[in-house]
């Protein structure tokens, strides 16, 4: 009996140590990724990278200035399109809607969320690029915006619903209309969570490449306005990484570092905002 217990204890310690190993392996993946990016990309980041346009094929010294601005424009458009839809849709779900409609809308949002990004790309091509006969920043922004909608919608709804009933009832008791209550009481109370949701949605689409392949295409120059194809960081990374030019590889690493840094910073900031003000009790 004693040796049986000793064995069981040994197994227990061993297996639990193994789970620790699993956790360490999983977490260390993040640090490996960061490490490689910093090592390979850090040395390639230069003033040229941020300020120059791409050089002709095979020549060194080009940069990704247009891709950086292009990504900024795409993300701005995506936010302008996706956030209001998600936010206002969530307001409807949380404040006005009945159970059946809410179920349908949430289901559709989850469906949209789970749609592979390449399929979103096909959809945006069929809806925006093909009929208007041009690749454009609009099309890219539309595709990315679509991807921001479900995240914004579900999170905003969650945070709106978590606002205590006492706040709502207090406002109503003072004679405020539904709409005034929402605008001046409920949304401000939930704003931390909503902002977090928007930031996380933003960070998610900042790295998306597939939807841009068929919508924003690419551009070796500055893209003028919003109705032309535009370069973007993720697509440039892809194009340069699969080539054989060492200079392009270096630029791909640098761009990867810039992109990942941006995404991680936004994620960290978003979570920090959320943890400052607790609107939702932890599960």
């Amino acid at each position, binding site marked *: 009996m004693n040796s049986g217990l000793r064995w069981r204890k040994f197994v227990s310690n061993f297996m639990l140590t193994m789970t620790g190993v699993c956790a360490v392996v999983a977490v260390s993946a993040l640090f490996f990724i960061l490490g490689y990016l910093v090592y390979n990309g850090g040395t390639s980041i230069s003033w040229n990278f941020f300020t120059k346009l791409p050089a002709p*094929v095979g020549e060194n010294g080009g940069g990704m200035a247009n891709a950086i601005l292009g990504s900024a424009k795409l993300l701005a458009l995506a936010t302008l399109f996706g956030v209001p839809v998600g936010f206002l849709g969530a307001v409807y779900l949380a404040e006005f809607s009945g159970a059946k409609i809410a179920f349908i809308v949430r289901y559709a949002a989850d469906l949209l969320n789970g749609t592979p990004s390449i399929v979103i790309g096909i959809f945006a091509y069929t809806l925006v690029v*093909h009929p208007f006969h041009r*690749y454009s*920043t609009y099309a890219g922004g539309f595709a990315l915006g679509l991807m921001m909608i479900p995240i914004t919608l579900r999170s905003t709804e969650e945070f709106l619903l978590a606002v205590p009933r006492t706040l709502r009832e207090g406002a109503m008791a003072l004679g405020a209309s539904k709409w005034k209550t929402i605008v001046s009481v409920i949304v401000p109370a939930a704003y931390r969570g909503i902002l977090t949701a928007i930031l996380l949605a933003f960070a998610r689409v900042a790295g998306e490449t597939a939807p841009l392949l068929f919508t924003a295409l690419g551009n070796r*120059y500055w893209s003028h306005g919003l109705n032309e194809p535009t370069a973007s960081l993720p697509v440039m990374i892809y*194009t340069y990484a699969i080539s054989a030019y060492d200079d392009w590889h270096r630029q791909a690493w640098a761009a990867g570092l810039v992109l990942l840094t941006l995404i991680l910073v936004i994620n960290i900031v978003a979570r920090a905002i959320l943890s400052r003000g607790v609107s939702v009790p932890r599960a």
Partner: protein
Amino acid sequence: MKRFAAVLFGTLGLAAFFVARAALSITGAGATFPYPMYSKWFDEYHKKDSNIEINYQSIGSGGGIKQVTEGTVDFGASDGPMNDDQLKAYQDKHGFPILHFPTVLGADVPTYNIPGVTQELNFTQDALAGIFLGKITKWNDPAITSSNKGVNLPANDILVVHRAEGSGTTYIWTDYLSKISEEWKTKVGKATAVKWPVGLGGQGNEGVSGLIKQTPNSFGYVELIYAIQNKMPYGRVRNSSGEFIKADLASVTAAAAGAAKNMPDDFRVSITDAPGKAAYPISSFTWLLIPSKIPDAGKRDAIKGFVKWALADGQNLVESLSYAKLPKEVVAKETKALDMIQ
């Protein structure tokens, strides 16, 4: 929230600023085969006239044909001329024909990465067809070693690399293979995208050269400049006269000699397996695909102006990137044909 909105609108305002600039932007897409040349040309032309920006995206010849037919780009580019079905599809869709304009001459070269082998290898027609059909699988197969006496070819498996997407470089290669191998012609055929019997797919000439450069024992076809720019060895190919020829300016120009004299009016011609002792057998023209009607006057003039420049001053730049100049007769014929663009 207010600050966020302010930043957002500030960014958009900046974006709108770029609308204010009066530059004319033209978008083209297609072949990766001439991409190094085109990117240099568009860059030089932009220096000449900073108002004109020609944004060329190298997505493959198949993409060039498709996107110009869809109307999503202003012009296309392809190393495989559009076939009759594709021409008809364009005409049916737009109501006017699309025109081919040859720009440079280039070559598909067989490039490889064999550990320990730095020499130039000789490839017979049978060797090339056999490797791509999957019948010749090892580097030390007699079909290869018999033309390469003195080279120590290892007993390693050949990793064939081809194009993953619709490609004019593929068209040129399969066009050649169809001419020299009956089996290839019936089993696989020639097109911008085929059902490859063996091999890995790379994206664009860029992707294929990237793959080959990184993978030992690999073998594939790329446009000459990609092999040169990436310092990859490429072999000699036996031509119809039995000579092993290396792709270079002289041999590619020799391949076009016959076509120069008998160029059809629509400029669609194949010069693979061309006759002539000095001809490189896997040479080809590459074409710009330009609609014969361009409603926007600014774009029309810009495109015509560019093509005129490319046929004249532009030709002086091609040899530095190892493309061959167009024969004079072709240039003359094309310059006249430019008037067809309304």
